[in-house]
């Protein structure tokens, strides 16, 4: 059992070699920071996407004509409502407004709590409008004339709401040039989850031109959004891995040379092999744990307080300048990160220390 004097002595030796340990500390902190920043961002995005998905019904139906997106009618609503097992079908108005001055599309989403003169926009849209001197209101240019709306509220941008403009159904129809009986998509409610796939097939049987997506399909779609980021993830992980190998090499070489003599001295005054292992374990655990938690703290601050400048652009491109990452921590991921960083870090010092401690020390301390 390790006693307090032993721990104190381990810390004294650690402080003595602070310059050598500082290198390991900074590299390790950087690796944890980089890896956990990537994990925090992807966890946050997934969290927001899944949250948005949860609010949707089990089936989303869209229409196509000649393979291109088309609107749905009341007839579609009524027919689908007749299918056994369907509880409700809600026609939704939703679409994109082309803001040609900035070559950007605004996602028009319905919120019927708003009146005919007002709208809510995301902070990203707010910054775009500000560039064109639209401060309190904005004019939508449509084929039927100008629709002028007051900005009543600015909401935080996240992966879902980044390009969103909320207006009521009537205004949305006017902006998107849709008639009363036209819908962008249908939200189909199915009380029995086991029947979702079956009903989806029935809808396609009924209207072969309709596109039917279940919640599971949408979840796959969301996950696919990040597959193309795989290359970026890979590069970041390769950077982390290379840094980590440099760190391990530094760790291993730190046990040789002068440290070998130090181990020999300690052995000569009665330190057993297990005591040398304990000593190195205490010292490197302090370094590894401090680095790990500092790295996590810095990554958390960087992603959730400063909204990950630079990394955000790598992940999401330049269209998401005002996005806010929703704090989301996956303990399993952090535990995995701990296992894949702290354990090799400790092993890289303990194994060579053990090997040296088992050698004949008499020549070293002569």
């Amino acid at each position, binding site marked *: 059992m390790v006693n307090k004097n032993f721990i104190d*002595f381990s810390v004294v030796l650690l402080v003595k070699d602070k310059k050598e340990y500082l290198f390991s500390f900074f590299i390790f902190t950087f690796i944890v920071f980089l890896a956990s920043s990537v994990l925090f961002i992807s966890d946050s995005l997934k969290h927001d996407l899944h949250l948005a998905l949860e609010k949707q019904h089990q089936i989303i139906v869209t229409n196509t004509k000649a393979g291109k997106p088309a609107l749905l009618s009341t007839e579609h609503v009524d027919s689908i409502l007749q299918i056994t097992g369907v509880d409700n079908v809600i026609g939704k108005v939703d679409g994109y407004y082309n803001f040609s001055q900035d070559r950007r599309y605004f996602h028009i989403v319905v919120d019927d709590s708003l009146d005919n003169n007002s709208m809510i926009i995301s902070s990203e849209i707010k910054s775009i409008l500000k560039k064109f001197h639209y401060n309190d209101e904005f004019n939508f240019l449509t084929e039927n004339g100008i629709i002028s709306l007051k900005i009543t509220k600015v909401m935080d941008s996240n992966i879902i709401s980044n390009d969103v403009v909320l207006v009521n159904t009537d205004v949305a129809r006017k902006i998107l040039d849709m008639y009363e009986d036209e819908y962008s998509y249908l939200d189909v409610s199915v009380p029995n989850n086991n029947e979702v796939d079956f009903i989806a097939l029935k809808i396609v049987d009924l209207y072969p031109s309709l596109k039917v997506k279940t919640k599971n399909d949408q979840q796959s779609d969301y996950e696919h959004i990040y597959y193309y980021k795989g290359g970026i993830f890979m590069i970041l992980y390769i950077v982390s891995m290379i840094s980590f190998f440099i760190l391990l090499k530094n760790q291993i070489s730190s046990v040789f040379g002068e440290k070998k003599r130090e181990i020999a*001295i300690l052995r000569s*005054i*009665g*330190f057993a*092999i297990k005591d040398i292992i304990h000593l190195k374990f205490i010292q490197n655990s302090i370094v590894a744990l401090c680095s790990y938690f500092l790295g996590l703290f810095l990554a958390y601050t960087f992603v959730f307080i400063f909204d990950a400048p630079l990394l955000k652009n790598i992940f999401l491109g330049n269209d998401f300048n005002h996005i806010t990452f929703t704090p989301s921590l996956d303990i399993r991921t952090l535990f995995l990160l701990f296992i894949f960083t702290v354990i090799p870090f400790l092993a890289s010092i303990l194994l060579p220390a053990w090997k040296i401690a*088992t050698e004949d*020390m*008499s020549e070293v301390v002569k």
Partner: protein
Amino acid sequence: MTSKILIRNLYKIYNEEKENQFFALKDINIEINNGEIVIIKGVSGSGKSTLLALIGALSKPSRGDILVENQNIAKLPDIFSSQYRNEEVGFIFQSFNLIDGLSVYDNVKAPLVLKNIKQSELSEKVEEALKLANISHKSEQMVSNLSGGEKQRCAIARALVHAPSVILADEPTANLDRDNSLLFLEILKKFKELNKTVIVATHDVIFDNLTVADKYINIQDGVVL
């Protein structure tokens, strides 16, 4: 407590059964009584340091026995041989073997950190050893800032701090000037007063014909003459 040391048919062979096999020690038989001061003389490479390392359980013999108070330390597993070094043996090396970057106090307390004793008791023992080695006034100094003689005294304090029964000194005056070498001889007298068993491996003529020495052992080519 003091220890009687009995060495029987001791061999240390490097690269055993290989082409470059080398006998560092051959059939050594020595008896050292409690509280004796023994000087092992021999030229460089004669095997005296190897013998000291074996008595201090720093190294394992190829064959033979080393009995310290009837306990065969040649056959002890690491955990017990380390315990033996920590409780019964104090080393004084030619190159002092202090840990650079630590203070005199921290170097001297090192053997005690393995013991589960109170901080106050630890401090008391360290202070006592520093006083005995006449280095108390430098206790807060870094060992890298000490002179050769001061480093030697720091090493002596570290060798005494855990009250060992056996002191092993390997060429203790090799890195000292004449004044400090003479001082070491005075310290040998102190060891005698403390009834420590002291074994000094040296080729320094200053140790010739010492009145304080109980026994002289001459080694040449790994064999006791």
